Every structure is written in C-alpha cells, then in structure tokens.
C-alpha cells in the first residue's frame, strides 16, 4: 500500500475512490431531507447534518431560519452556544434567560436571550421537555476523572473542547466560549438546590425546532451531559436541519406571550432598524 501511494497520481486515485462514501454522521451537500414540514419547500433547506456521538457542528443562520434538532436514538445531548453573527461579543446569557423569564426550565415558547437584552433564538417546538440551563458541559478535567481520558484526539472527547473548536472555526477564542444550555438532557432542581440529572436514555426521534430571531452563529457539541451518572461514556448521534423562514411578525404568539419577552423582541426589531 505505502509503496503504491508513494506515487502522487496513485494517491489521488486512492483519495478519489472514496467519493460517494456514506456514513451516519456527515453533512449532506446539497442538503436534502424527506421529512420537512409540509409548509417548507425543499429549496429552503439550508443545512442537513448528522452530528456524531462526541462530535460537534457549527453554522451561521440568518434571522428567521428554523433550526430543527432530532435526538435520533434518544441519547443525544446538544450543548449549545449562540452568538450574534455580526457582533459575536453579543451572545447567549443563560442567567438572563432564566431570570428574565422567571423560570428555570426551557421548553416550547421559551426565549434564548443575549447579554444585550435581545432574543437570539426562540423555541417553537419541543417534544423532549428535558433541558438544562445550569450545568454547562464537561471539560478535560471532568472527563479525565470520570472516563480516564477526555481529549479531542481520544475516544471520549469533552464538551468544552468541542465547543472551543466550533467557536474557533469562526475566529473565536477561549474567552468567547460562554456558559451554554444543554438540550435533550435535563436537570431538575430540588428545594434544597440539589441538581437531579435527567438523562434517559429516551425514545429516539425527540424533536425541537428553534427560530433564529437574529443572524446567529450556533455551535453545538454532542457529548454526554456532565452529570450523566453512567460509568460508560454514553451518547448517540444528533441530527441538525435548518431551513429559511419568515422573520417573526408582530402578531406572533411567542413574541407577545409575556411583557419581558415582548420587550426582548422590541429590542431585536430596534437593532435591525437601520
């Protein structure tokens, strides 16, 4: 093998022979999906990718885009960072997200707020119901302690290092990787503050649809929840699809659901008044 591939043309033929290989975790280009909502045109699909267990993905999404995440086999954990794409110093603020909405738990109708009083994304559909705004993700230290190893280059990558790589693909640095939310893996807060992890595994196919309320960069890591009690590093693939959609209209029920949320939308609309 090595002898043959010492010839550049043979190396080229070897590389080209891989074309058309299909694996589970990969992007589809151009994007294609046979299960889009009936009111979504196939031409409006902009992103179709399955994120590996332990993998990550990142994407810039225009205002109005819908992002659908599917927990294919019931054991995915989507740790999510969100940035304002044109000014990434503005980003998801988990403290404001729970404080402004007077509630600890994410779900349909909830807003993901930035540190500038604006809504970055809203949750349109959620049939999972188990999410977490408090625990963040694993890091090299926690994975080393729990699984004996946690490097990007090893078998049990940690969430923080995946988010760092995803953010770096947009020119961002360590100080840009901010507190995240975890989708599909949840926590319940007991009266004394105890955090009870809700990690399933669940039935496959749980789905969320988020709407970008600004031009955003999303970075998604799919690694086990940091409080996953299982000894084995356990996570399954996550599917991401995105399609173009209308900017939120004035009569949108999520926009108008609460006075605090409405002011977050007013701040977004003010930002785009230019």
């Amino acid at each position, binding site marked *: 093998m090595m002898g043959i591939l010492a010839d550049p043309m043979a190396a080229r033929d070897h590389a080209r022979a891989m074309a058309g290989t299909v694996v589970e975790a990969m992007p589809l280009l151009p994007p294609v999906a046979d299960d889009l909502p009936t009111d979504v045109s196939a031409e409006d699909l902009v992103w179709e990718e399955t994120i590996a267990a332990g993998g990550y993905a990142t994407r810039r999404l225009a205002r109005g885009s819908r992002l659908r995440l599917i927990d294919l086999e019931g054991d995915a954990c989507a740790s999510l960072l969100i940035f304002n794409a044109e000014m990434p110093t503005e980003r998801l603020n988990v403290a404001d997200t729970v404080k402004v909405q007077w*509630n600890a738990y994410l779900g349909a109708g909830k807003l993901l707020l930035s540190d500038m009083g604006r809504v970055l994304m809203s949750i349109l559909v959620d049939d999972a119901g188990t999410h977490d705004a408090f625990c963040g993700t694993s890091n090299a230290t926690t994975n080393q302690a729990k699984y004996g190893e946690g490097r990007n280059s090893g078998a049990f990558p940690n969430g923080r290092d995946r988010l760092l790589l995803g953010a770096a693909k947009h020119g961002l640095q360590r100080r840009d990787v901010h507190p995240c939310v975890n989708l599909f893996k949840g926590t319940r807060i007991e009266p004394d503050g105890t955090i009870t992890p809700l990690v399933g595994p669940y039935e496959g196919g749980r789905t969320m649809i988020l709407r970008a309320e600004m031009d955003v960069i999303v970075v998604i890591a799919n690694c086990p929840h940091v409080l996953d009690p299982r000894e084995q590093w356990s996570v399954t693939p996550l599917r991401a699809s995105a399609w173009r959609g209308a900017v939120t209209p004035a009569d949108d029920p999520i926009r108008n659901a609460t006075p605090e949320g409405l002011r977050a939308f007013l701040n977004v609309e003010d930002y785009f008044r230019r």
Partner: protein
Amino acid sequence: MTTDPDLAGLSGPVVHDEIVPARAPWLHHVATGQTLRIVDLEGNQAVDFLLYSAADDAERYSAQDTVAAQGNLFLRAGTVLRSNEGRPMMTITATSVEYHDTIGGACSCESNTLRYGHHTKSQHACVENFLEANLIEGRGKRDMVSNINFFMNVPVEEDGALGIVDGISAPGLTVDLRAEMDVIVVVSNCPQINNPCNAFNPTPVRMIVTA
C-alpha cells in the same frame, strides 16, 4: 487585640482593608492562600462577583462548572469556586449566610429594559461596573460570564418559578474566600433599585484581605 467585630475569626495579618461605596466597582488581586472576607455592612446588599486567573485571564469563574461539580445550585461554606477549565479558584471557607446565588447573573442596562421597562435603561447596573473594572486590565465584554451574587437569594420553586426575593443577609454578615490560585477579583456592589436584592437601598460593603 482588635475589637473590630468585622475581623472576628480571621487569622493572619490584614494586608488590605477597603470600603467599597454603594453602587461602585472594585478590582483586587488576591494571591494563593490569602483570604478575602466580604462584609455586608448594612445588610441586604448583593455583591456581584467574578474571578479571573491572574496567570491567564481566559480562565475564569464558571458558575456552571461550580454547581455541576457539587451537584447543587447554592453556594455554601465548603463550596469550591471552579474555573471554566474545572480548576479550583477559591473556596468558601466560612459564611454567616446560609447560601449565596450564582444563577441570577448581573443586572445590566439592557436586561433592565426587559425586566422593568425601557425607563430603566439609563440606570447604573452591575455589568457597567464589571466592564469599567475589567477594561482597566484589558478585559472586555467577552470576559463577562455568569457571576456569583453574594448575599442574594434566588430560590427555584417546584415548577421552575425563579426570582430574586428578599435578602437573607443582615448587617455585619460575612463570607470568607480562600484563594486556591492567584486570582483577580472583580466586584460590582450592586446598584439595582428595582427589586428586593438590595432592599431597594444600595449600601457599602467592606473588603478585608488577610495573608
């Protein structure tokens, strides 16, 4: 022998002692092994608090790593304040308040517009203080993360209902923090006047560092 009750229980010589005025920022470097005591002089005063590693300020306090590591949302005596890389930065060695908050974040001009209305946009806020202090050392908005609110009470109800409620602090109550690495402490003595976190009346706090 001192008779200053704010120093009770502290061992080691006092190397810094300062009153932070109501509504003001404060930045101070605390060396490994030193203890910082925060005194809530008049009671019911939230002290918004961030930490950075002095050796590498991209490593900073992480509320998420801290609560995940201890499996509990509330900061109590014994809590280890962890960095975004999972390392111990400071330990709460003692506190006369039952618990402290780290999920409520800092008030900002922008979030005040959501919480209370656009008439509060021009009011002073903790994020203004954090930025003012951090900018002196070259840090900026990318360095703002979820903070600690000492002496602030944010219970989470069974249905997830959450909010800043009346303080559980009183005049003279304290929290002691031992530095586990060389750290930069950045504080906003919270100026918020639209909720009960400061009893609607921001007051001074005292910062005492012992070697």
